């Protein structure tokens, strides 16, 4: 053996070296392929979400002249809004139908066999009647006039404009017929129908299964925002205070050890457990309302606290003891040394941990299932603090809700909502990375 080593040279590769080099090459290949698999999965996920969901950000609108006959909408003729309310949305649907028929006639539409005015009116969203009623009740003076109204097109018509529905599908589909698509083509030629960016997707509330075209994320975004506010206001101070005490003041004994173990343990508890806890404590025992952001916020606070405490303690630990010693040396009290010197230096790390905890809470669905937030909520919650107690939805919950709906239009909406959620998460994580890059100090 020894003679072999003596006789070897750095330039002559022995079997042993070759084996080791090969092992390293293999290891690198493993690493590369692991990363490649990850990237491929990400690309597949993103491209499927983007191709399904980008359609949600465009929407087809129909602009028509709608006649508002006084004898239908205001029988007393005194423009009294309270009395005009007796005309329900079902009373407004025929007006919209008439508007479609009138415009089609102008454009020279020959009614095909088997098609009724009702079928023609069906190319407009059911939301339009509600929109028209709201408009008339807000402006009672327009009764008796003809107004130009921009309305949503029916979900299937919207699908046709986006290429999701074609004549072959329409022939089989019970909710749309090829004749209706002919009418749509005519209205496109007549300049009444156009597709454009859909701000309403971000601002309008959810809609029922018959109106995928009108469904939006407004309530969900607001609900998520409220919950994040609650989490931030509660989890950050509690988490930071707890960490400072544990890290800087608490004696090391079996009690603090126990607490430490528990905190690490809680960070790994499945989130659904927090939902069960929230249902039992906040709703059943505390008597808080169902489906409210306050309960969601409290549950997510409990879930986020361990994350924040662990991150905060890590960043407090990374502040060198010399800083504390120097502060104490010039006569600062223990508390002064912490609040004047240690905490500011640890702040970037604390903020990063908090933002990552918030991002995690934003995407959480399971605990919200149990506290009644998976619901059809159409009404916007009021401004805080009362709004914290009003029913609301949340972004991930809205995705879950929409994937369960029967109409194919909601698949597009759900993917669109995923895109919105991803954008929020990317922004939050980018801010966390930026803060860390900018303010982090290394010793």
């Amino acid at each position, binding site marked *: 053996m020894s003679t072999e080593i003596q006789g070897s040279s750095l330039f002559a590769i022995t079997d042993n070296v070759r084996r080791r080099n090969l092992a390293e090459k293999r290891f690198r290949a493993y690493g590369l392929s692991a990363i490649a698999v990850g990237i491929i999965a990400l690309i597949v996920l993103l491209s499927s979400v983007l191709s399904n969901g980008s359609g949600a950000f465009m929407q087809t609108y129909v602009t028509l002249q709608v006649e508002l006959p006084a004898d239908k909408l205001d029988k007393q003729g005194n423009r009294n809004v309270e009395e005009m309310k007796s005309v329900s949305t079902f009373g407004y649907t025929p007006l919209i139908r008439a508007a479609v028929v009138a415009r089609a006639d102008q454009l020279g539409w020959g009614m095909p066999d088997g098609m009724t005015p009702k079928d023609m009116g069906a190319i407009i969203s059911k939301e339009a009647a509600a929109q028209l009623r709201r408009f008339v009740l807000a402006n009672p003076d327009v009764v008796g006039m003809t107004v130009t109204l921009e309305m949503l097109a029916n979900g299937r018509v919207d699908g046709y404009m986006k290429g999701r529905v074609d004549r072959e599908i329409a022939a089989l589909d019970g*909710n749309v017929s090829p004749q209706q698509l002919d009418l749509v083509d005519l209205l496109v030629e007549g300049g009444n129908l156009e597709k454009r960016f859909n701000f309403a997707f971000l601002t309008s509330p959810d*809609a*029922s*299964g*018959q109106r995928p075209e009108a469904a939006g994320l407004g309530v969900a975004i607001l609900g998520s925002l409220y919950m994040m506010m609650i989490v931030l206001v509660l989890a950050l101070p509690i988490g930071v205070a707890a960490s400072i005490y544990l890290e800087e003041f608490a004696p090391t004994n079996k009690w603090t050890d126990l607490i430490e173990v528990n905190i690490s343990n809680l960070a790994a508890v499945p989130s659904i457990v927090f939902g069960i806890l929230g249902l039992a404590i906040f709703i059943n025992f*505390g008597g808080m*309302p169902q489906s409210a952001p306050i309960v969601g916020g409290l549950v997510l606070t409990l879930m986020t606290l361990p994350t924040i405490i662990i991150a905060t303690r890590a960043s407090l630990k990374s502040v060198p003891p010399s800083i504390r010693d120097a502060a104490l040396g010039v006569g600062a009290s223990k508390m002064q040394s912490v609040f004047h010197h240690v905490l500011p230096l640890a702040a970037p790390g604390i903020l990063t941990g908090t933002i990552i905890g918030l991002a995690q809470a934003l995407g959480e669905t399971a605990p919200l299932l149990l506290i009644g937030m998976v*619901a059809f909520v159409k*009404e916007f919650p009021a401004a805080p603090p009362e709004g914290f107690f009003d029913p609301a939805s949340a972004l991930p919950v809205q995705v879950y809700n929409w994937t369960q709906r029967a109409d194919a239009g909601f698949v597009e909406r759900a993917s669109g909502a995923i895109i919105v959620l991803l954008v929020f998460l990317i922004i939050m994580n980018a801010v966390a990375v930026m803060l860390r890059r900018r303010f982090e100090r290394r010793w």
Partner: protein
Amino acid sequence: MTFLKLTASVLAVAAASSTAAHAREQIQVAGSSTVLPYAAIVAEAFGENFDFPTPVVESGGSSAGLKKFCEGVGEGTIDVANASRAIKDREVAACAENGVTDIVEVRIGYDGIVFASDIAGNSFEFQPRDWYLALSEQVVVDGELVANPYTMWNEVNPDLPEQEIQAFIPGTKHGTREVFEDKVILAGCEATGDYDTYLAAAEGDTDKARGKAAEKACISLRTDGRTVDIDGDYTETLARIISTPHSIGVFGLAFYENNTSILQVAPMGGVVPSTETIATGEYPVSRPLYFYIKGAHVGVIPGLKEYAEFFVSDEIAGPDGPLAEYGLVSDPELADIQAAVAAAGVSN
């Protein structure tokens, strides 16, 4: 120090506001996922046409909804439970225990259960006995009970296409499963005469016990993967059908009607399911849908009675209303139901 003060005051405000009484203005509804789309349509229209806020509609299943409904009386509990089956005596008792005694049952119409497959695949025309023979755990062959030997649809019925048996049926937590077992599997079991074989083999002291055992034997399904329970929604069944082309799924009529471009429906007992054939009772597989109102909340939660009346009004639940358009089979006795709802909670 200001940081600490701020924290303390924020906590104080949060604590104070959470204890403050917060009067509930909107109606809270929970229950069956089958009724959910209809309830959402009604809630939306209700919010548009009345000055009351739009009700909040939660899903979660009939049993879960009724359980929540029976938790008690007061603002912290829900006002309406949706159910795809009638309330059980056990649940009425549980309700009464918690002080929920005034329960108003409202039948909103009927839901058809349909058998559908990929539109590009073979067409089927079923009898209940075909489903029993295809899915049952044991069948009678030459007078002997044997483990289900069939693997192809044309083996159970020569008129059916030559296709592997592969079915996706609702899981046991769904109300739909009960109807499927009752109206299809059990009906098929009786039609083939296998029921009598089971009855002869059944053990029990009374005729009733033996009958129960025979029924249970009829509806126990094979576990070799030819039939798969779907615990999720119909969207999941649809996804499985698309990924397994030669398969047949069990859907609600409303779901099928929203997806006629990808699914073809199979007639059952020679009748094609539609709102008309279900309303007349010709199509055999259907069930009533209900919602339950907490009588004690009428007059307390604003708009509750108006919501119930609006739900069963002709323009909503009638044959030309939006619910029928979505796939609900309108109740032929709607006028009686309207009268019952109008009378509900009058004493309060």
